[in-house]
């Protein structure tokens, strides 16, 4: 995650979605390692596709939402620095 466009605070906010991603990742690994019902080309592909697609889609959405919000924040801060009113946005780290 070294190359993210996010600052520390945003990364911290995003951890909330890292937990479900972790659970999905755990199951993907578990299905690979423990496979009592055998491999079937169709079924197993769908099995991994379901969990995998959720993992990928959630990653993408989280990334873009995080980016949209942190960009908006940056703009707001820039505007406020110019005006000097106070921000309404830092509650989540309280």
């Amino acid at each position: 995650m070294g190359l993210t466009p996010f600052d520390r605070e945003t990364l911290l906010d995003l951890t909330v979605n890292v937990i479900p991603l972790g659970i999905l990742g755990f199951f993907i690994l578990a299905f690979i390692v423990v496979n009592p019902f055998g491999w079937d080309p169709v079924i197993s592909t769908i099995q991994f596709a379901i969990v995998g697609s959720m993992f990928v889609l959630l990653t993408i959405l989280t990334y873009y939402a995080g980016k949209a919000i942190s960009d908006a924040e940056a703009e707001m801060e820039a505007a406020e620095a110019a005006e000097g009113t106070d921000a309404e946005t830092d509650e989540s780290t309280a």
Partner: protein
Amino acid sequence: MAGEQLALTVLMGALLVAIVALSTRLENWRSYTPLAGGGALGEESTTVHREKPAGIVRWLTTVDHKDIGILYGVYAVLAFAVGGLMAFLIRAQLVVPSGAIIENSFYNAILTSHGITMLFLFGTPIIAAFANYFVPLLIGADDMAFPRINAIAFWLLPPGALLVWGGFLIPGIGASQTSWTMYAPLSIEQTQAGADLMLLGLHLTGVAATMGAINFIATIFTERGDDVNWANLDIFSWTILTQSALILFAFPLLGSALIMLLMDRNLATTFFTVDGGGALLWQHLFWFFGHPEVYILVLPPMGLVSYILPRFAGRKLFGFKFVVYSTLAIGVLSFGVWAHHMFSTGMDVRLASSFMAVSLAIAIPSAVKTFNWITTLWNGKIRLTAPMLFCIGFVSNFIIGGVTGVFLAAIPVDKVLHDTYYVVGHFHYIVMGVIGFAVFAGIYYWFPIFTGRMYQRKLGKWHFWLSMIGTNITFFAMLVLGYLGMPRRYATYEFDAAIAPLAQVINFHLVATVGATILLVGQLIFVWNIVQSWLEGPHVGPDPWNLKEEAPELYGREYVWHENRLETALADGGEEEDVATDGGEPTDAADEDAPDAADE
């Protein structure tokens, strides 16, 4: 077989994604707005009430988002009353094992109609009521992006409702008895014409919901005021945005499936028959819509509570952005869990286990929200007004509803409890205890804005306590009934003791019916309070919740708007304002209630 069907479903999902992606590229929404806003009538979409025609014509022709919000609200509350009376008939029927009052086929008809009515004629519209009225106010927009489409979307609903209830309204054609899930092959084989009407009505409400969803997405993306951006968009609008995206992906699929079912019924096609796609195909299509539907129904209520609860806790929502991101997470994941409704269909274990995995993952964002609400309450300056009571009841019911859901998501547990009353208990904790409660919180919180008056505070509290007690008695008894083995959807239950211990089952059915009676009394008080206060309640001042003093930074945009409206009304020589009403009587409420709150 199962593999093929799954693959088909996944393919359809992918197709939908592609279509949406395409359509976002094709058009620039903003450029359409002035036209859709009604060209020459453009001026009218602002908040000048005097220019509207009077009386019934106003309501039939309005394209003002606030009027449409009220239309949705009235429609939904009427549907709630119809669905509620049906629920009460169901409970009355089941006080004795042989069925107390109605025939089995009529029982099946009202069971079906109760479910459809509550989900599609009450649930989705009441959310649209709040969203139409308040999203534009909260994001600083003049109106919805497409005001006329907004009106059309609403006006599709009344005919939809008439069709859904057609089986009861037109004598002799027979009401639908398919249950809300419309499982094939039963739904194909039943001959009542009422079932066809219901499918058509359902289709119509789906079209309406989709039109509304597109409108909200366009509005939130393009009509925000200059000072509203993604970082300070309010939580309710976030949930509406997510919900609208879910609607966009889920309802068209339901629409297609409904058409296929109608064709199977009337044109002898074989989509869902044994020699065609098979009954399981229906279940896959239905639940690919059906699970997201439950989140379509629950996300905006979660947004309502996230919005209202902090205002009576005197502090901002704890972890605002956690709540936003987890809302989005629920939105995505809700499309990967549909087959947890199908664990007992003999689906391949490997597939089942992947649905279980996603179901467990989706529980996390829900739990995160719960912790955020509780943390917001923690050490807050709590004012137990009616909306706040409903918010707290919401959180408590959500814990029970959510935990019972996580149990069901575990395959071995589900194999035991599937199709018992446990499932009925689980989802009623959510649909009544959570969605219903949030809706009440929203109605009470914003009552001063859409009526200009205050409700009766005492009756509001009676309504809350009767609802809270009634909900928990009724639906907890159902959880127990499920453990005892009572199957769901039965009109009678004179079964032998091998299925379930009859004596205990009878007792718990009785308990559930007593709870339902308490609930009914509570809702009668609610309706009385709303109607009476709307007509005769004391006028409110600009800040009915005394937020400026109690939580100044939470004085919302909609109350700023309300304040402006009152000022312009006064300047017109409008009625004299009874500014001292402070309906929620915050000062007094704070005095008497704060000590209890501190104990919790």
